[in-house]
């Protein structure tokens, strides 16, 4: 943190006198507000339009997912994780399955690994598409939303064909996959890759060089790499600040080490860089999918796991690079069929910490832009 005093807690009771003896305005944004991406409530303290400070109030979507885990078996808890980051359910499932596999000391067979990577990367694209649409909508461009939703639909169709669900997929099982890839899965994925490449160019055409978009995003919500690390911010937000940290490269999980791909980084750590980083990430995900779909090996899709899972006593922390950042599962096992405790490290929750730092001194409109660029999902923040 550059200046610890800059983030002193807000005193919302006594408004200060400001310029021209006007009182500071304390306004409440959310939990029902079109641009807070669900039920985030932000208390803003404004001097005119300038943000003097803000405070997030969360918990409106709290469902006690971590507590539920303590009363479910390892297998039964698997679908619950999809409900945290519901726009990237596949990633959540991957993280949980791998964590339990690590605890059980089994490894999913190669074929399962490949299909997992394809679905996870497809989900990363879907998540980024949803982010782009809503972010652009917050900044006032309505059209990209419909373009991205049109194309995201194709991904959801693939999910639906694969496992019958579109959003909360429950695609993976502990130890591998339940379903074999359906006939024509490879073809569908290849078609999708060819379909979506020009579409990403289309989004960029609407926004990347748009003057208003540049003015609204450049220099807005700046955060330095150092502050990111201090606050624990991960994912595209961290990379846009110039820190080359991607768990797919840094601590390869699944079989990401088999694929060639780049980690895009930004320089300024502003909203525009985060936009560019995510756009490049979509293209890199396509690259991974292309390689993976070419190399799906034959073989079993399920490792040998006991029907009744009783992991040995111990604890495990496993984290993956979810679309929004580092998604970690800390699981404590007491040797029974149910976990003693599961703690989730959700990227949205941790990234949301940076909101105050990024918004101070900016205008109200920038708060909206920054909430959008942080790419939070309230299901994951509140759990």
């Amino acid at each position, binding site marked *: 943190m550059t200046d610890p005093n800059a983030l002193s807690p807000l005193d919302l009771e006594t408004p200060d006198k400001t310029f021209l003896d006007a009182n500071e305005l304390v306004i409440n944004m959310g939990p029902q507000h079109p641009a807070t991406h669900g039920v985030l409530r932000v208390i803003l303290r404004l001097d005119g339009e300038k943000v003097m400070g803000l405070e997030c109030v969360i918990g409106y979507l709290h469902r006690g997912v971590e507590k539920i885990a303590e009363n479910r078996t390892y297998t039964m808890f698997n679908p619950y994780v999809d409900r945290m980051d519901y726009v990237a359910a596949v990633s959540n499932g991957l993280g949980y399955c791998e964590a339990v596999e690590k605890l059980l000391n089994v490894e999913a067979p190669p074929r399962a690994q490949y299909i997992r990577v394809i679905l996870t990367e497809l989900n990363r694209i879907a998540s980024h598409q949803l982010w782009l649409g809503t972010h652009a909508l917050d900044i006032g461009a309505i059209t990209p939303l419909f373009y991205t939703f049109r194309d995201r639909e194709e991904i959801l169709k693939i999910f639906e064909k694969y496992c019958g669900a579109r959003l909360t997929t429950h695609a993976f099982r502990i130890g591998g996959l339940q379903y074999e890839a359906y006939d024509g899965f490879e073809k569908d994925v290849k078609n999708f890759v060819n379909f979506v490449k020009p579409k990403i160019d289309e989004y960029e055409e609407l*926004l990347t060089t748009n003057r*208003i978009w540049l003015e609204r995003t450049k220099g807005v919500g700046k955060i330095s790499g150092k502050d990111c690390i201090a606050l624990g911010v991960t994912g595209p937000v961290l990379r846009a600040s110039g820190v080359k940290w991607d768990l797919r490269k840094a601590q390869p999980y699944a079989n990401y080490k088999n694929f060639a791909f780049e980690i895009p980084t930004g320089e300024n750590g502003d909203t525009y860089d985060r936009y560019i980083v995510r756009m490049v990430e979509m293209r890199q995900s396509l690259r991974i999918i292309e390689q993976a779909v070419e190399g799906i090996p034959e073989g079993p899709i399920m490792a040998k796991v006991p029907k009744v899972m009783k992991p040995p006593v111990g604890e495990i922390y496993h984290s993956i690079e979810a679309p929004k950042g580092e998604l970690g599962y800390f699981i404590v096992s007491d040797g029974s069929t149910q976990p003693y405790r599961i703690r989730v490290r959700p990227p949205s929750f941790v990234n949301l910490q940076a909101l105050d730092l990024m918004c101070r001194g900016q205008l109200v*409109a920038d708060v909206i832009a920054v909430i959008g660029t942080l790419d939070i999902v309230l299901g994951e923040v509140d759990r």
Partner: protein
Amino acid sequence: MHGFIQYIQSYLDSDKTPGGAGNIFWATVYILLVFAGLSVAVIAMNWLERKILAHMQVRLGPMRVGPHGLLQPIADAIKLLLKEDIIPAEADALVFWVAPFIVVLAAFTVFVVVPFGPTHAITDMNIGILFMLGVSSLSVLGIVTAGWASNSHYPLIGALRSSAQMVSYEVAMGLAVVSVILMTSLSSEGGTLSMIGIVQAQQAQGEWFIFKFFPLGLVGFFIFAIAMVAETNRAPFDLPEAESELTAGFHTEYSGFRWSLFFLAEYSAMIAVSSIAVTLWLGGWLRPFPNALTGPTWDLVFSLFPGITFLFLAAICFYNTARMPKHPLFRVQTMGLAGFGVVLALIGLILFIHGVRVRVQDIYWFTAKVGAFMYLYIWYRGTFPRYRFDQLMKVGWKVLLPTGLVLLILTALVGMRTELWAELQGVWRP
């Protein structure tokens, strides 16, 4: 009976506006016509905006109420009128009640001087353009009072934004308008502020002012075209009602009929500023090439356009009738669409009659040009992100205002070039 027809005939053949002729009855008829036409235009715009925007955004838009959602605006209007009329407990009830009326009044009153044709205006004031700018800027009063009376944070911020925005863009707008007035002074009749006079000046000078002193006229037009979007609070300058930031801006607390008044005012304000732009730069009611393509043949060709347009719209209706699903559930809708097509075709045929054709073409060209602006408004909304408040101010004060000033001086210099040249020669060669 014969006398009555003659009475009507005398109106139709008069070369004065009702206001100019001092005929109260005739003026009242015109006012009612303009009011009705405007309401229909707003309803049509409501449907068109939703449809066009939807098609830009790869979706269909309203499709359920009536064929292709044609009855959607009517359904919306009924819904709005039936809704409970809420005045928040903490609001200043009287001001809250008055605010929408101020906005609507300002938006409608400006149409008093809008010239749909050389005689088709309610009245022709010698300060017409000044009147339009003055009255249309009164609507900011309604917006500010609406925001203030709501006694709520978001409307207040919306109202603050709106007042700052409208006041700053009016300056640039005014400068662009003054440059046109300088151009009118080059006509033999001298300069004029009258809306009809401005169009007649363009006719006399043989070119639309958008092409005058190329590129000066064009620059002035662009300044106005940008400022007018800001003036009407439309995307990309829709900060006062920025949905993602201020929920609905100054009309957050309004519902039902009062809300619909704001809606009505917004759209009629759009039409009003577009008609200023059309009058000042695009030759108002003049048909394209009024001086280049003259003669009875061209007159005939251009006077056929209104009929052709309506027949074209009818053809679209018939084409879509043929494409309607054949299921019996859609029978009523299919018939409705065909009926709508028949009505449009009949109007088109009526517009071919000589007596109608000649009288209606001024109105047609004016409306077509305004319609093009309306399309632009929708297009902007589908394309641009929203400006931030400080950037909006920057564009207004640091870009448009200096450009407008330079434009004004240049227009004056270029307009006076022969006189200046003579003057200079007098100085150098005594």
